[in-house]
């Protein structure tokens, strides 16, 4: 299975070296096309006017915030079940990126909400559950930071990620229930079938661009993480070497 070949971090780094420029290029092209389409091709909404253009970043960011968590959940399974060496690297590095996308979804959402609803924030079911997701991301990042040993931190974070993955639907459901008891829903809906292709296409292109952006950032961050662990191993070795200078002398012929 080809996937397993890239379990070796060195091989993975080589792959990243090859893939990253292409992916970055594609991402830039997709963003250029998507931004052009969302500003110049897409029509303004008859109800919301020009503010509908915020949707082209808001909705992809919201999708990505959830996709990112799914990737972390799968990676956590990889850590706990398959013991894949890159799984916790992937899970760890996806968290800040996911947090950033969630943050973007929240910010654009409230900037969209102000002209439409008259307020930046309502404790609406959907918004609240995205906020809870953001807190989950930040909590996971903090957990990673407070533990010194990456292996232990990886396992702990994997358990929390999976518990969160099981809990998020429950949270979503209960927040929905909580909210309908108190306040009638005021969230605007994108009713699938009624979306005009002129709106749908820019949205899809932007979604592809955001996904590509995620993968570019994720690969870059994974590369950093692998380097960080290499530094850690080397430092541990450096500390344990009693006489590093003599080690230099013997190491040189081997190079």
């Amino acid at each position, binding site marked *: 299975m080809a996937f397993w070949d890239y379990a070796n971090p060195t091989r993975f780094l080589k792959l990243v070296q090859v893939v990253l420029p292409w992916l970055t290029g594609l991402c830039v092209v997709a963003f250029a096309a998507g931004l052009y389409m969302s*500003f110049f091709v897409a029509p303004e909404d008859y109800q919301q006017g020009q503010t509908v253009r915020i949707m082209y970043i808001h909705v992809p960011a919201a999708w990505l915030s959830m996709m990112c968590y799914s990737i972390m959940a799968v990676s956590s399974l990889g850590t706990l079940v398959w013991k894949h060496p890159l799984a916790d690297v992937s899970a760890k590095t996806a968290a800040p990126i996911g947090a*950033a996308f969630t943050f973007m979804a929240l910010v654009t959402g409230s900037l969209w909400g102000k002209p439409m609803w008259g307020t930046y924030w309502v404790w609406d079911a959907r918004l609240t559950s995205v906020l809870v997701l953001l807190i989950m991301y930040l909590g996971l990042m903090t957990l990673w930071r407070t533990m010194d040993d990456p292996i232990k931190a990886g396992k702990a974070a994997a358990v929390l990620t999976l518990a969160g993955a099981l809990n998020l639907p429950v949270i979503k459901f209960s927040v929905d229930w909580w909210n309908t008891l108190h306040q009638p829903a005021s969230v605007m809906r994108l009713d699938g079938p009624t979306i005009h292709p002129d709106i749908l296409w820019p949205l899809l292109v932007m979604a592809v661009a955001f996904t590509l952006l995620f993968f570019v950032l994720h690969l*870059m961050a994974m590369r*950093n993480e692998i380097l960080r662990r290499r530094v850690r191993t080397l430092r541990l070795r450096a500390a344990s070497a009693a006489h590093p200078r003599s080690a230099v002398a013997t*190491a040189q012929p081997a190079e």
Partner: protein
Amino acid sequence: MDLGPHAGFILASYGLCLLTVLVLIAWIRIDKAGQEKALRELAEQGVSRRRPEDGGR
């Protein structure tokens, strides 16, 4: 083009998203520079990934 009465909100959302992505990229680049610097320093100290005794793993 005319963004209507809410141009400020639209530009702010795009701007903030751009800013977030730029901060993320900058953070990743700085992190990478830091790790590579540490690796270089360790290499100068003569700590290699190969153990001197067995000449490679």
